[in-house]
């Protein structure tokens, strides 16, 4: 009797732990469904009012917190911008760095009848293919990816992150005095690799004497490793740093400590170092989200790939006024953005 009571209590404690952990990692921002309007008697000579269209429901599954000032925040901010002009309901499941957990969340949104389910992470592509087959009437989106796996209910979206990387590289090459620039990356894939390849190309184009050292730490989430990678760059003489992905907060801390200029991407990272952040390439996913929502409304649930870039205003360079960037450097950056947009500057694809 005592043993079974013990097990029951222990099981309850474990269940409590699981529920609490679920509360922490699933920060759903559901808006309550609108209550149906109270019924009123309509005058006989007044035409019946058309029922209000239901808001489109968007579910987002992301590998990190939606306010990480990087990858996940870029999508969260973009969806909010979409919400300023459309009637939408948004639910977000952030912090799902375990793919199996993310898959469960994706399936959950599909089961709950969401109109668009966004898998915001390349690593979710595998399970998404299976889930999409199970819910042919639900539209899914996967990013970053150019492959929608031949499914007519998956949209793929990606970013030409190399463009902003190139612009940042052009500026970095002008700010370095030691001619050594450090880059902290996660895994050499997706928009991270595009950004870094573009950054290296821009720096080398601006200053062929600049040495750009790239360190992929093979993790999207190891903040301490990112911090040590940045310190390794500094130890090797780097006096300008950049990086990408959610673990980059470790590297920005080193940049702030050493007073080293930092170039950001994905979201505006000025809050991570008001004195050292020079500029950030900001993703405007709403450019492609609007297109997806229009297509869903028209009955097309997928089968198309989208890319955000300077050309379609899906990318924007945001500068930190607090850094005090030299006007000539800023002018070169603006000219580079214009050149890329007009096609006179081609950002080379990385290896």
């Amino acid at each position, binding site marked *: 009797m005592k043993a079974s009571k*013990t*097990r029951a*209590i*222990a099981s309850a*404690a*474990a269940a*409590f*732990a*699981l529920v*609490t*952990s*679920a*509360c*922490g*990692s699933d*920060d759903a921002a559901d808006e309550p469904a609108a209550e149906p309007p109270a019924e009123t008697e309509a005058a006989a000579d007044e035409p019946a009012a058309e029922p209000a269209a239901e808001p489109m429901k968007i579910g987002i599954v992301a590998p*990190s*917190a939606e*306010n*990480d*000032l990087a990858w996940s*925040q870029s999508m969260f901010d973009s969806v909010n911008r979409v919400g300023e002009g459309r009637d939408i309901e948004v639910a977000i499941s952030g*912090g799902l*760095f375990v793919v199996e957990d993310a898959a469960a969340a994706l399936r959950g949104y599909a089961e709950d009848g969401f109109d668009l389910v966004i898998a915001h992470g390349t690593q979710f592509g595998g399970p998404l293919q299976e889930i999409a087959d199970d819910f042919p009437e639900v539209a899914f989106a996967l990013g970053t990816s150019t492959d929608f796996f031949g499914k007519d209910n998956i949209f793929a979206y990606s970013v030409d992150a190399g463009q902003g990387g190139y612009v940042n590289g052009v500026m970095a090459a002008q700010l370095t005095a030691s001619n050594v620039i*450090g880059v902290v990356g996660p895994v*050499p894939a997706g928009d991270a690799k595009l950004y870094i390849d573009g950054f290296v190309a821009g720096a080398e184009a601006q200053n062929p004497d600049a040495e750009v*050292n*790239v*360190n*992929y*730490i*093979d*993790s999207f*989430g*190891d*903040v*301490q*490793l990112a*911090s*040590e*990678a940045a*310190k*390794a*760059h500094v*130890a*090797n003489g780097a006096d300008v740093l950049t990086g990408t992905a*959610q*673990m980059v*907060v*470790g590297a*920005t*801390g080193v940049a*702030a*400590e050493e007073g080293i200029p930092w170039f950001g991407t994905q979201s505006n990272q000025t*809050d*991570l*170092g008001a004195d050292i952040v020079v500029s950030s390439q900001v993703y405007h996913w709403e450019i492609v989200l609007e297109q997806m929502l229009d297509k869903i409304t028209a009955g097309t649930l997928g089968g198309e790939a989208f890319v955000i870039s300077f050309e379609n205003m899906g990318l924007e360079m945001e500068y930190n006024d607090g850094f005090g960037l030299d006007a000539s450097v800023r002018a070169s950056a603006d000219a580079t953005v214009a050149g890329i947009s007009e096609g006179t500057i081609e950002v080379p694809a990385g290896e």
Partner: protein
Amino acid sequence: MGDFFTVSVLVATLASGIRLATPFLLAGLGETIGQRSGVLNLGVEGVMLLGAFTAYYVTLETDSPTLGILAAIMVGLMMGLVYAFITLVMQAEQGISGIGIYLFGLGFTDLLFQKNVGTPIPISGLGDIHIPLLSDIPKIGEIFFQHSLPVYVAFALVPVVWFMINKTTFGLNIRAVGETPEAADTLGVSVNGTRLITILIANTMACLAGAALALEVGIFQQNLTAGQGFIAIALVYFGAWRSYGVMLGALLFGIVQATVLQWKTLGIVEGATASLTAMAPALLTIVVLVIVSRRVAAPSALTRPFDRSG
């Protein structure tokens, strides 16, 4: 490869290795004490996260890293009481309850962070302490004597833990309840009382490890520890439940990590080779674990609850 074998790079690598080893070492020493008394805590990762968030949040609100550390220690004691209740009073399966503690720490810290902070805000860390005279020794000073306080505390605790376990009556009690709790009980040693104290120490050191990490990187983020707690548990086995063994394991892991980072920075390894090299710390740990497990046995009463009534 020649660039790596310059004095400045080697110095930076070793110093980085010592910093990387510190959270493993603190958490590993605490877990060693716990396991020597027969208590396994797979929730070290969760406790580290609680310590990391506490230190971060208190520092953010008070601008005092010292208060942050003290608060983390208090949270460690609280978590020790919680785990002691679960394992000693309720006698729950230690492996499963430890996983519950991990999930609790992971989710609760994320919840607290999202509700109270939201966007990552940098904090001021502890800063490095240059040990007078010693830090001025060329190269040696840079490697060993220009670190933050938690680094010094972690390595200073190695001989302290060794002495406590091997040379004190309390240490004898720890070893006794970890090997043959029934015999210890007949000799008047309070088995659960001893385990309560070791659990408190272990959880406090795990929280201290998390605090050290948060104050070193100067920020908090979901899953900040990124699995370091589980590696610390592995290092306890690696070190054969000896404090010096755990220290060697932590240093090996940290220095290999730092070396791989430097190789990548210098372009010595890149692409797929870099990814393979990144596995080196874990592979090395597994190899040594296999060797150690053949030669040294775990405490006999590890994970076995003690019930006087039999």
